[in-house]
C-alpha cells in the first residue's frame, strides 16, 4: 500500500500532514492518560511487531505494494488512538530506515493505514463484539478500508492535477483503475491480516497482557 515519492501533490500532502499530526498529538494525549510503567515498552514492541508485519511487501501493478498493516491488534488491545500513534511511529521509521513509502507520502499512509485502519478495526470489533471471530473481521475490514482510502486519495489526482496538454502532474491513474486495482488486490492481504489479528489478540487476552 506504500506510495512512492513524487506521486502525491503538495496540495494534498501538506494539509494531510496538518491533519495527521494534529490527530497524532491528540492520540498522544489520550495515550498518556492511560500510561503505566509497562505501557511504553509494550507499545514500542507492539510497534516493532507491526513493523515486521508491514515490512513483508509485494509490488502491485496498480502502482503500490501489498503487505500486512498490523494496526488492528494494536487498536483492539490499546484503543484506536494509541494504535494510530504507533502506526505514525512505524510508518515514520519505515520511511526513514527502510525507504518504504516516503516523506511526501507519509501523512497519506498515516491517515489511511493508521487512522482509517485503527478506527475501522475498532468499530468493526465493537459491531461484532459477541462473535468469536470479531478480531478476524476487524483485521479484514481495516485492511480493506485502508486500501480503499488510499485508492480514493490517489485516484482523485488526475482529475485535479494535469497540465494544459492533459499530462498528469502527479499520480496518473483515475479512480476507475485505482479502486479495483488496489482494493481487490488487498483481499488476500485482508484475510491474512484478519488471521493475524485473531491470533495475536486471542493470545494476548488469554495471557492477560492487554495495555
Amino acid at each position, binding site marked *: 500500500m506504500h506510495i512512492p515519492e513524487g506521486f502525491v501533490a503538495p496540495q494534498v500532502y501538506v494539509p494531510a500532514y496538518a491533519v495527521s499530526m494534529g490527530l497524532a498529538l491528540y492520540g498522544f494525549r489520550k495515550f498518556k492518560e492511560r*500510561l503505566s510503567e509497562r505501557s511504553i*515498552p509494550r507499545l514500542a514492541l507492539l510497534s516493532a511487531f507491526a513493523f515486521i508485519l508491514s515490512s513483508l511487501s509485494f509490488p502491485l501493478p496498480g502502482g503500490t505494494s501489498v503487505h500486512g498493516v498490523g494496526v488492528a491488534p494494536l487498536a483492539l488491545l490499546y484503543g484506536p488512538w494509541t494504535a494510530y500513534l504507533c502506526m505514525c511511529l512505524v510508518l515514520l521509521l519505515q520511511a526513514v530506515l527502510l525507504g518504504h513509502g516516503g516523506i511526501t507520502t507519509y501523512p497519506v499512509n498515516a491517515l489511511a493505514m493508521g487512522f482509517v485502519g485503527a478506527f475501522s478495526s475498532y468499530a468493526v470489533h465493537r459491531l461484532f463484539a459477541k462473535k468469536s471471530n470479531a478480531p478476524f473481521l476487524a483485521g479484514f475490514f481495516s485492511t480493506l478500508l485502508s486500501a480503499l482510502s488510499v485508492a480514493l486519495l490517489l485516484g482523485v489526482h488526475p482529475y485535479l492535477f494535469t497540465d494544459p496538454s492533459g499530462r498528469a502532474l502527479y499520480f496518473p491513474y483515475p479512480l476507475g483503475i485505482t479502486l479495483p486495482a488496489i482494493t481487490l488486490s488487498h483481499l488476500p492481504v485482508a484475510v491474512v491480516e484478519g488471521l493475524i489479528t485473531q491470533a495475536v489478540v486471542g493470545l494476548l487476552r488469554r495471557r492477560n497482557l492487554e495495555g
Partner: protein
Amino acid sequence: MKDKVLLFLYMAGVVFVSSLSSPGHLLFIFFLLLLAHMPSASRRRLRRRVKPISLALLTTLFISVPYALWTGHYSYLSLLALRALDIMLLTLLALSRINLYSALSFSRSLSQLLVLSSSYILLYRRLFLDFLQALKSRSPEGIKGKEFVRFSEGVGGYFFERFLRDSEEVAEAMKSRGLDLD
C-alpha cells in the same frame, strides 16, 4: 534546536521540489543535490545510498511507464523520475545531517518510545533477515508457497514470544534505572 530547524528547512525543501512540474528545473536541482552529496561520498556510503534510490526509481518507472506509453506523454517519465530522485537525494542529505531523535523530541515519553521502537525494529529486522537467509539456503530451487506460510508461522510465533519477554525485561530495566515518564 538545531535539528528541529534543519528538519523544518528540509520539509520546506521537499514541498518546493515536489511542487515543481518542469523537468528542466528538477534536473538543475538534481545536479545541485549531487554536488551537495560529493563531500560525504565515500564508496561505502555511496553503496548504501544506491540501493534505496534505485528501488524507488524502479517503482516510479513501474507506475509511470504504462501511463506514458498509454497516453503518449513521454515527458511524464522524466518528470516523475527526476522528482522522485530529487526528493530521495534531499532526504538522504537531510538524514545524514539531522539527528532524528533530537528533532522529534517533543516530550520525554515520545523520545523513549521512538528510541525503543527503532532499536527493537532494527534488532528484529536483522534477526528476520537471518531467518530468511536460512530459509533461502535450505531452498535452492526457490521458496514455495506452502514453505513460506510455514516459515511465516514459525517466525511470527518466535517474534511474538520475544516481544512478550523483551517488553517485560525493558520495563524492569527502565524501572530500575528510574526512568519516569512525563
